């Protein structure tokens, strides 16, 4: 019977194409927009992601997310180091700035100053040079895409110089730093050098990065830090989610993406629903004939759902394939869209959404199939 209903389905090629197109369209739109949205949210906490060795982030109590900076006194670093359970704690300077090449090309940049001694917080993905090269005078690490934007068309090369607030900076390391939310260029340098590149007020310490001793849970150490110092202290994961939640709550990004995703679902459902309804309406005499021949209502529903599932699978495969192609070819590691991808759980979520879309679109049709009167075959309704 399965082969029979599959043949019945593909007997109407135009309608099948319409159904597959509807599902593929919805899949592509939802998967692509969801991937971009997740990528954007991931970008919002790129600094946290790159400092992969850090357990705990400590900051001024007024700071809600990673892009809000309220510098602390240097003394806070020593207070944190004194909290039991803290294995080590290092400073992090974070600031937005602009950089200029000798040729005059200017870009916005995210400047990150890491601990002079340990260099903790530099992206571990090094493309050229070594992290230790940051110890050289005026040394900076620049991300590969930032380099390509400052010197377009030129091969990656160490030793290039940049003007950073009238101070000379020398590229000694090229990294694959996680892309930032807004800045075009990501620069890592030593803490002592960063504060001289971007002079601020009396207080310069943006964050304190700490590690819990191996025998203690980072969350409990973070609580201890907060209790002892009066500062905010979060685990890296907690701080990532706080940052994401801040953007979700305070920007129009989620609404914009949610609207597009919802449109994809609604338009896809409408196309699939209408086409499937037409398909079922045209085939009602055939379903009625199957009932006359001895197919029960339940079995018939199963067969119709199988037809819907086949269409759904085909549409999903095409849609998710196109979305994967987009992320594969448009979001290469060297493009401005780097970091955007299609994680398995988005693909799974879209599959569940498409399944729901198919069920919703076919529900009304299923009722008509279930109550299709076999007697219609006698009265010649076509």
């Amino acid at each position, binding site marked *: 019977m399965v082969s029979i209903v599959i043949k*019945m389905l593909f007997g109407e090629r135009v309608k099948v194409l319409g159904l597959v197109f509807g599902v593929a369209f919805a899949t592509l739109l939802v998967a692509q927009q969801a991937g971009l949205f997740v990528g954007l949210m991931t970008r919002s906490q790129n600094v946290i992601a790159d400092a992969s060795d850090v357990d705990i982030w400590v900051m001024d109590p007024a700071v809600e997310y990673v892009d809000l900076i309220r510098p602390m006194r240097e003394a806070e670093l020593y207070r944190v180091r004194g909290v039991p359970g803290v294995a080590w704690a290092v400073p992090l300077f974070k600031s937005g700035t602009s950089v200029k090449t000798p040729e005059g090309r200017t870009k916005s940049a995210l400047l990150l100053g890491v601990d002079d001694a340990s260099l903790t917080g530099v992206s571990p993905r090094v493309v050229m040079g070594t992290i230790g090269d940051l110890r050289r005078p005026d040394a900076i690490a620049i991300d590969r895409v930032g380099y390509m934007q400052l010197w377009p068309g030129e091969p990656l090369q160490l030793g290039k110089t940049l003007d950073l607030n009238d101070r000379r900076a020398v590229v000694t390391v090229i990294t694959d730093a996680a892309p930032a939310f807004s800045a075009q260029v990501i620069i890592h340098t030593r803490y002592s050098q960063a504060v001289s590149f971007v002079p601020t007020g009396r207080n310069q310490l943006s964050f304190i990065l700490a590690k819990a001793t191996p025998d203690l849970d980072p969350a409990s150490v973070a609580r201890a830090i907060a209790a002892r110092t009066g500062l905010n202290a979060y685990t890296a994961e907690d701080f990532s989610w706080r940052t994401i939640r801040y953007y979700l709550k305070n920007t129009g990004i989620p609404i914009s993406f949610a609207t597009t995703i919802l449109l994809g679902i609604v338009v896809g459902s409408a196309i699939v629903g209408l086409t499937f309804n037409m398909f079922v309406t045209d085939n009602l005499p055939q379903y009625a004939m199957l009932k006359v021949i*001895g197919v029960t209502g339940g079995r018939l529903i199963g067969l119709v759902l199988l037809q819907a599932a086949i269409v759904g699978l085909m549409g999903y495969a095409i849609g998710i394939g196109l979305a994967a192609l987009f992320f594969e070819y448009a979001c290469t590691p060297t493009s401005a869209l780097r970091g955007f991808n299609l994680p398995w759980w988005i693909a799974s979520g879209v599959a569940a959404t498409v399944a729901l879309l198919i069920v919703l679109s076919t529900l009304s049709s299923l009722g008509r199939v279930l109550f299709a009167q076999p007697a219609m075959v006698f009265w*010649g309704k076509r």
Partner: protein
Amino acid sequence: MSQTSQPLPGPPAIVCREVVKYLGRRKFRTEVLHGLDLEVYSGQMTLLVGPSGCGKTTLISTIAGILKPDKGSIALFGTAMADLGRRRITHFRGRNVGLVLQQFHLFPALTAAENVAVPLLVLRHGARQAQARAANLLEGLGLAGHADKYPRELSVGEQQRVAIARAIAHDPRLIICDEPTAALDAASGRLVMQLLREVTVKSDRAVLVVTHDHRIFGFADRIIHMDDGRITRITDSTEREAA
């Protein structure tokens, strides 16, 4: 002169007692069958005849378990249909009833052989076995070279033969034909009826043909006349020959 050789009637295949059936709802509700009593025997071809709108199609739909009688009882081969639920009626019909419909209702996306195999697949026979049986039946009906053709590629007469093959594919004990000659000229109608007699009438099978085509009355072993939802007269071939 009768065109039938008179087979001995077997046990009653269909027994209808005081069957009443209403169609329509509320103020349009109309009594179509008025307390109808009827017996149809195995081993015979029985014609159900009468003018349009007299209730023939309603009666065969009710006999086939497609419609439910509002009053009275129907038994097929000793099984009271009222005792079966909707699901079991569908199963019972699938096993025991073959239908040849006026508009054939062949599945357009399936080949002739696949159409014939459908009742067997519904009964969960293996695909290979069903295809073999379908090929045999089509060959027996002179359609050996047409097994892989789609209904749109067949003439009306060929489509009708495919419909007949589909109706007998699962060897049902009751075959119901609804106006099998309505769309055919006299010669084609006679051919179809000859074919129906040859391939369907068996001692353990009842064949009930609904028609108002008097040109085919000669093929019947028994004719049940209906008018206005009632059986008005029953004649058999010997009576007709005597007349």
